[in-house]
């Protein structure tokens, strides 16, 4: 196993009043060590559910319907999808080898515990070190994320910190055990733009020293362009396109990706008076759709799109799209190879 994470045909369902919602509907994801992969998509596309499945955080009314989540753990390759939700094995990995940063630091931090105690917690839980060593490393971690006077902040409560500082503290907590995979779920969405810029700069700086991989979940195409090496676009529980970041922005292949990129207004004031839109809205997650889920909104939809579901296939080297418009190209390439 050369990838750090290798997800195969993952399916996650939720039981709702309206029936079964296929939140993640058969996706493959691989992340190489040290890579930063951004998962983008709009609300309900399944990006956050994917991250929660990796962390073993899918709880009723949701369940993992099928698929494998192979992770190169220190103990050897492990299929996280097979581990019992609160068992010893997942607890050993979660919070130490795989950690997570959430969107709302105020809800992710415990309001009645001091910042320092919260950062020491994963260390004391996962590593055989003394309390004083843990404190030392927690303070070093606070300093590494740019918190001034970390020794003093160690003894403060989350409400004493500003939003940006809380997000830094959460990053410090996520990195203190040196994880091999860091999942960042909309880590800057709740922050103001100048504070977001500080946190993104920090994450970029940390990436130079941090040897682990980052899975960056966001809806913001600007943030993706600044942070990621590779991008995966999700729509209605499926991956519709995956490429290196430059290829995706320069030559988006899937009509959904093209539509998304076009509907962002230009801050330079370029572009038409009217914004390009993707007509209609995302079908409800409980709705069963035959063929490509994007076909009802797609300006290029063909009869085949309403019959069959396109697979995610390579169109160019390292650039995959799940779209019949590109399948002829994909097939030719497969024959040549």
């Amino acid at each position, binding site marked *: 196993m050369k990838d750090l994470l290798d997800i195969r045909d993952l399916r996650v369902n939720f039981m709702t009043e309206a029936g079964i919602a296929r939140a993640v509907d058969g996706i493959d994801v691989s992340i190489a060590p040290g890579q930063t992969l951004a998962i983008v998509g709009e609300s309900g596309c399944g990006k956050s559910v994917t991250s929660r499945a990796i962390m073993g955080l899918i709880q009723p009314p949701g369940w993992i319907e099928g698929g494998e989540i192979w992770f190169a753990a220190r103990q050897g390759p492990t299929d996280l999808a097979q581990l019992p939700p609160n068992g010893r094995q997942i607890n050993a990995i979660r919070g130490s080898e795989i950690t997570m940063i959430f969107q709302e630091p105020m809800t992710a931090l415990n309001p009645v515990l001091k910042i320092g105690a919260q950062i020491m917690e994963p260390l004391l839980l996962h590593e055989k070190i003394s309390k004083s060593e843990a404190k030392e490393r927690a303070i070093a971690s606070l300093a590494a994320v740019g918190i001034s006077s970390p020794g003093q902040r160690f003894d403060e409560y989350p409400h004493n910190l500003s939003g940006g500082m809380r997000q830094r503290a959460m990053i410090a907590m996520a990195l203190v055990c040196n994880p091999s995979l860091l999942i960042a779920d909309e880590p800057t969405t709740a922050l103001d*733009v100048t504070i977001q810029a500080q946190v993104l700069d920090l994450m970029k700086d940390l990436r130079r020293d941090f040897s682990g991989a980052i899975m960056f979940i966001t809806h913001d195409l600007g943030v993706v362009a600044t942070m990621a090496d590779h991008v995966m676009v999700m729509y209605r529980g499926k991956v519709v396109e995956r490429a290196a970041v430059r290829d995706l922005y320069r030559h988006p292949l899937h009509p959904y990706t093209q539509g998304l990129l076009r*509907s962002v*207004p230009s801050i330079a004031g370029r572009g038409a008076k*009217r914004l390009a839109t993707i007509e209609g809205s995302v079908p409800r997650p409980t709705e069963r759709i035959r063929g490509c889920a994007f076909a009802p909104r797609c300006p290029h939809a063909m009869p085949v799109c309403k019959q069959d579901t396109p697979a995610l296939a390579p169109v160019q080297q390292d650039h995959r799209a799940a779209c019949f418009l590109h399948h002829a190209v994909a097939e030719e390439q497969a024959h040549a190879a």
Partner: protein
Amino acid sequence: MQPDVLLQVTGLRKHFPTRSGLFHTGSAVKAVDGVDLTIKAGETISLVGESGCGKSTTGRSILRLIEPSEGEILFRSRAIGGSSETLVNVATLSSSQMKLLRREMQIIFQDPYSSLDPRMNVADIVGEPLRIQGVLTRAERRDRVIHLLEAVGLGGDHAKRFPHEFSGGQRQRIGIARALALTPRFIVADEPVSALDVSIQAQVVNLLQDLQAEMGLTYLFIAHDLSVVRHISNRVAVMYLGRIVEIGSSKAVFSRPQHPYTEALLSAVPIPDPDSARARIRLHGDVPNPSAPPPGCPFHPRCSYATAQCREQVPALRDAGPDQQASCHRIEELTLAGINDH
């Protein structure tokens, strides 16, 4: 007041008292601290700035959804004083006059989930302003509601459904239809697309622009997304700690900012282009506590260009180019970076 001006705000202040202890009343949070704003008929002017800068409080104070502490809000009203235009000071109107004024001034809210009553159907939600004002008969009201729903891109067959049956984008269309029910001239749009996904956001931005062209609306657009602001506005006002620090045509403010805060704000926006290489102005620290703003220029603790003068004297908003004003002591000396085509 110039004939093309619809609304003119002078010296608007809103101070919220804070309690620092059980028996001590503390200092006031100066959420809006002396805002002057002139809005021309038919234009879109945007208020931008970070959380707590006072942009929403300004918008709501103008509508008197929040009572302003001080200031004058002159509005060219048609509803008050018969059919001819009358200049009224919104800040001093009686509640019965305010009710009449609501026909001309409306608001669109950010969150399409909390701003619609879940127990009312769409026809009742959109028709409620008409019912309260008592301007139409029941049958006329029904026709008007269907017309409004069609104007915002929904069908008349949606009238009997309830908010939970709609997506976020559709709910925002319902909120827009309600705001338009009384054919207002002036609309405060408070982060109307912030809660929407990007593809839906584009649909709603286009709708707002189409309605403006059709109905001659004037928008005060409150937003933190600078790309949307650049797209939709004729003019932009940048707020920091309750004050306007820069105002001008959106082209001028975005391409040639004259206040260091505007420069930093623009440089912080992540551009959806992996090859966009920009020098980012790193702003250190956070926005200061608005109950204890720093002396001198309120931005000086975070400003990399600050001098001794900035730490002592409050800069006034002054001309900084054609159709552009900024409150900075160093306008003439500094050349700040804007957003350029790249």
